[in-house]
């Protein structure tokens, strides 16, 4: 029992690497996408990207990257990098959407007020708009991180040894499904609780201005 637990727990690092790698790429790329959305030439391209990513299954995107890239481009990706890239690319589309709705939900008057006070564009975004947007989208972002964490279980499909896959291996070896799978569930649940806890902490620290 204890050895099963620790065998499954060895997947923890892999799962966390996938999650945080994916979140990092998703955040950076998502921000980039939502900035580029303001440039006329890129709009169609980015909207297309977001639409395709959201319109196809993640497991399929991952399979394309892991199985077909070697023959297409002659590069063999490790399981970890293939996972991080697919989760990151996938997440970027959702992050870009979250940012877009966060910016759109700010009253137009905030931009106008800054304009009447002669605040230049760079400072308008840095000091007036983005701090408010970040506060607004924090709950949605935390949801996105949690969703990504749970989506990393898909890596077991291409053979990645994460928590999920390890619990399945034990189950198959010992012909006993309930305990190994529940152990995996407990690991994921604790991770989600941890993310929620950190998220609430950040929210509370920033949550001075809930109702303007």
């Amino acid at each position, binding site marked *: 029992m204890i050895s099963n637990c620790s065998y499954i727990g060895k997947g923890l690092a892999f799962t966390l690497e996938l999650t945080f790698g994916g979140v990092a790429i998703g955040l950076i790329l998502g921000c980039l996408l939502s900035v580029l959305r303001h440039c006329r030439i890129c709009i169609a391209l980015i909207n297309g990207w977001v639409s395709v990513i959201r319109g196809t299954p993640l497991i399929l995107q991952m399979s394309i990257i892991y199985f077909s890239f070697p023959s297409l481009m002659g590069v063999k990706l490790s399981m970890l990098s293939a996972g991080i890239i697919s989760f990151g690319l996938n997440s970027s589309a959702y992050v870009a959407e979250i940012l877009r709705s966060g910016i759109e939900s700010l009253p137009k*008057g905030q931009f106008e*007020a800054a304009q009447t006070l002669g605040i230049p564009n760079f*400072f308008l975004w840095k000091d007036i708009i983005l701090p408010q947007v970040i506060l607004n989208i924090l709950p949605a972002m935390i949801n996105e991180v949690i969703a990504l964490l749970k989506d990393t279980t898909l890596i077991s499909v291409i053979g990645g040894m994460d928590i999920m896959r390890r619990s399945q291996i034990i189950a198959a070896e010992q012909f006993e499904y309930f305990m190994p799978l529940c152990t995996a569930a407990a690991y994921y649940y604790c991770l989600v609780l941890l993310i929620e806890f950190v998220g609430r902490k950040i929210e509370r620290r920033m949550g001075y*201005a809930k109702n303007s």
Partner: protein
Amino acid sequence: MLKIHNASKSFGSTRVLDDVNINVAKSEILGLAGPSGSGKSTLLRCIQKLEHLDSGSVECNEKTGFMFQDFQLFPHMTVLANLLYAPNLGKKNTNCCKNNEKRAKAMLKNLGIASKIHEYPGSLSGGQKQRVALARSLMMNPGVLLCDEPTSGLDVATTMDVVSLLKSIGETGVTMVIASHDLDFLTKISDRIILLREGKIVADMKAKNHKNPVDYLKKYYA
């Protein structure tokens, strides 16, 4: 001082401002009255260049300040930071920032909200937000102050406060254009009242020349 010349503006097919001509003298307090949708806000926004005229021009040789009906304070900044952010922007000189801070504090004290200086706008009442918004635009030393519905949502007593506040600002030589539904308020505060209807000026009067200016203006609403 402030010259609005043949100003016209349409949104789609509706003509919101129709050949409006107004000259506002230095230090004059001009009231803008008119039914809902008559173009008061649009006129103010055109003066502030938040909106572009289709034709005509606005000439103003002084800096303008704008007070929004819904204040538009920055909710993530304290009251003091709201006042200081724009005037201190890009100022390397600490003396200048110190002076601004002194001025801001004095202004908040004058407006009776000194105790709220470190609070966030979310915890202020409507009247208090109003004062902060007023102080924030005054920090930029505008020669012309444009106010959109400064008394909407305020009770009678607070409205009277706003009257005396704006009057005292007017006495420092600031020119004002104030749009409002509240005819009583407008006649108390304005040197002159212009009444808009469907984007046209239909009355241009001085309150002190009428025995009952509110009734006089009301006729145009029918």
